[in-house]
């Protein structure tokens, strides 16, 4: 399950999306896709497949493969930079 670290905060500023992690002390730009990803994870811990499904509703002009790759890359980036993590609970 994907979770967001406590204290991570993200928002829209003007036309841009920014996020901050108190763990890594990084302030980063987010794509809209990454912003939505964080919003979904913030609402509830969520699995990769659930997250994929949610994105598919919005980004319906993407192919499944493309979306999957984009999501995997986004998750990898957000994890390695201290924004989200994977927990072992399975629901």
């Amino acid at each position, binding site marked *: 399950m994907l979770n967001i670290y406590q204290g991570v905060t993200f928002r829209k500023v003007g036309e*841009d*999306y920014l996020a901050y992690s108190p763990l890594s002390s990084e302030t980063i730009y987010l794509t809209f896709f990454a912003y939505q990803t964080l919003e979904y994870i913030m609402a509830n811990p969520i699995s990769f497949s659930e997250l994929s499904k949610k994105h598919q509703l919005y980004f319906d002009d993407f192919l499944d493969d493309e979306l999957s790759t984009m999501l995997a890359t986004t998750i990898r980036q957000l994890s390695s930079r201290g924004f989200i993590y994977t927990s072992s609970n399975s629901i």
Partner: protein
Amino acid sequence: MKSKGILLQIGPFVVRLDTSIKTVVESVYSLYSDYIFYEDVPSLFIDFYIRIDRPNLYRGYLRSQVQCYIDGNTPFKPLPYEQAFPFFEWGLNWVIASHVHYYLLVHAAVVEKNGDVLILCGKPGAGKSTLCAALASRGWRLFSDEMAVIDLKTNELIPCVRPISLKNQAIDIISEFSPSSIFGLSYKDTAKGTLSHMKPKKEWIEKADIRAVSKWVVFPQYKPDSATTLNSVAKGETVIELAKNSFNYNFLGAQGFNSLCALVDRSDCYRFEYSDLGEAIDTFDKLSS
């Protein structure tokens, strides 16, 4: 000279300066003459203790040096004796930047007009101090030439008025631009060249408790012979650049991020290039009208 203790209110801070160096005492009494001074009494809480003195026998006299002590210790290397007063100014900047984590601090000049604050943020040499001094001589109220002090809860800018430090050509430029301004001594051969301080106006000190919110965030760049241009800059970029110029953003966690985003959100953000000081003032006066 026997060591003298001077206690005064500088912006939101009560500062105690101890020194046995005559030129430091004279400069403080001259440039800070309109400030509130205190006696050391049981009912007074002093925020910062700074001592400016010769370090010890060898360094102090044989090598003619001066040292700045923060509450008894020093994080600095000694400087030439002649730079004793600027050392107080630099020491005060250091102690605020290192200890004050109840405000967000950004390396920027801040001026205000009609209740709206203009934040000028730029690298050393970009011309922000010159621009700040010029605006302050033309009806803008000075909050600070060095440090934007931001209340984390309300996002207001808090005045922290100090003598404006000007370097090299800026000293002559501003002396000409504002003949009625009073300057302290000139210090040659500092790390930043020749340095002098412009005395703050009495009205700025009298309004030291009056805060205001940000309306404009501008990144100025002096460029010889350039046209005066004001170009919008994206807010995301503004947040990131202000964060890079902050002394303590990295220690404030999410509070710092949220505060900076809120401030930028409510502000118009620009990059500003100029070579003519008069035109530069006009540009900002127009913005504020």
